[in-house]
C-alpha cells in the first residue's frame, strides 16, 4: 500500500519529558503554548470549513428542496390525479415514508403512498396511488440505484410499472411470476421486480390499515 501518512508511528523513544504520552515525531513537548497553538490552528481550520459549508448549504438547500418537492409532486400527479394532496399525520407503518390523501372537489378519492423497499442494488423509493376501492392506480419510481440496463428495465420502464395497476390485496400479497396475485417480472431483474412488489404491498397494507 503506497501510502505514507502515519500519524504517530515513528517509534522514537521520548527523550526529555518522561510524562510525554506519545512517543511520536521527534521532540513532542507538552508545553501548553504549543498544545494551545496546534489545537487553536485545528479549531480555526474546522471553523473556517464549517463556515464555508454553512454558506454553500444556505445557497443550495432551497434548490435541492425545491427539486425534490417538484419530483414528488410530479410523481403523485402521475399515479393519482387530484386537486390537492393532504399529508396524513401520525406514525407511519414500516416501509412507508409518506402518506397523502388525494382530495378532489372536497372528497377523498384515494391515497398517494410513498414507500421504500429493497431492490437489487439498494432501496427503491416509489409513489403508489391507491383508490378508495383499495386498488393500485399507478406506480412511479422516484429514487433508485439499480444497475443500468438490468434493474432499470423494471424501475425506469413505465410499461413494466403499469403492470401493477389494478392490483388489490383481495387474493393476498402481490408476488412476482408465481402465486395467486402475481405480476410478470422482468427476466434477469427479479430482485428489482420484487422490490417494486414489496413497495406496492406496503402501500396497499398502509391504506388498508387506515380504514
Amino acid at each position, binding site marked *: *500500500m503506497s501510502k505514507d501518512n502515519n500519524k*504517530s*508511528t515513528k517509534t522514537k523513544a521520548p527523550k526529555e519529558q518522561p510524562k510525554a504520552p506519545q512517543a511520536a515525531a521527534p521532540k513532542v513537548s507538552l508545553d501548553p503554548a504549543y498544545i494551545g497553538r496546534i489545537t487553536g490552528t485545528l479549531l480555526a481550520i*474546522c471553523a473556517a470549513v464549517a463556515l464555508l459549508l*454553512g454558506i454553500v*448549504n444556505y445557497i443550495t438547500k432551497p434548490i435541492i428542496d425545491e427539486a425534490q418537492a417538484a419530483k414528488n409532486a410530479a410523481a403523485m400527479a402521475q399515479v393519482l390525479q387530484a386537486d390537492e394532496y393532504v399529508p396524513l399525520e401520525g406514525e407511519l407503518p414500516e416501509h412507508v415514508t409518506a402518506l397523502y390523501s388525494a382530495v378532489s372537489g372536497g372528497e377523498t378519492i384515494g391515497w398517494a403512498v410513498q414507500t421504500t423497499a429493497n431492490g437489487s442494488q439498494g*432501496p427503491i423509493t416509489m409513489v403508489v396511488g391507491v383508490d378508495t376501492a383499495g386498488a393500485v392506480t399507478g406506480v412511479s419510481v422516484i429514487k433508485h440505484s439499480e444497475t443500468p440496463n438490468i434493474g432499470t428495465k423494471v424501475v425506469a420502464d413505465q410499461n413494466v410499472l403499469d403492470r401493477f395497476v389494478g392490483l388489490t390485496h383481495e387474493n393476498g400479497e402481490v408476488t412476482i411470476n408465481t402465486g395467486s396475485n402475481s405480476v410478470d417480472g422482468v427476466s434477469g431483474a427479479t430482485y428489482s421486480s420484487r422490490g417494486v412488489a414489496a413497495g406496492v404491498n406496503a402501500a396497499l397494507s398502509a391504506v388498508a390499515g387506515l380504514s
Partner: protein
Amino acid sequence: MSFTTLFDIALGAILINNFILVQFLGICPFMGVSKKMDTAVGMGFAVIFVMGLASALCYPVNLLLQALDLKYMQTVAFILVIASLVQFVEMFLKKAVPSLYEALGVYLPLITTNCAVLGVVLLNVQENYNFIESVVYGLTGGAGFLLAIVLFASIRERLEFSDPPKAFKGFPIALVTAGLMALCFMGFSGLQIPW
C-alpha cells in the same frame, strides 16, 4: 426491531452484500494487507473493532446534527470522529497490546481512510438504523471484511509460488482472484430468511 431483523442485517453484511466483494468498500487495505495471513487476521479484527465503535459513536453525533439541522456537516463530523477514534485505538494498543501494535505497524492509522469504516457509518444513516442495528451492522460488516480478507490472504499466499504472465504479477493477478471470489459470493445473493 427483533432478532430476525438483526440476523437479517448480519447475514446481509457478511454474505449477501459483503462489504468488499459486493459493495466495494475497503478495497485498499484488502489489497494491501492480504499478503500474509497474520497481518490479514490482525487487520480484520482491528477493522471489526473500529467499525463497531465508529457506528456506536457516530449514532449520537448524527442525532445531534439532525436536531441542529446540520445534515450537511455529516461527512466532516463523521470523518473527524473516525480519525480521533483510530488515534485513540492506536495509543491504547501501543500501551496495552504492543505486539499487535507492532504487527499492524503502519496499517493501523490507515484504517482512518478505510472506505468501509466511513461507508458503514454513512449507510447506517441512509438505512435509518437505530442504535442497536447500527452497531450490529458495524460489527458484522467488519466480520464480512475479516472473512473476505482471510479467504483472500490464503489464496494470495499460494499465488506467491505460482507463475502468472509477467504483466500480471502482483496486483493484476490478485485482482482477477478477487473477481473470482466476487463471482462466488454472488451465489449468496438469493439468500433470504424464510420466516
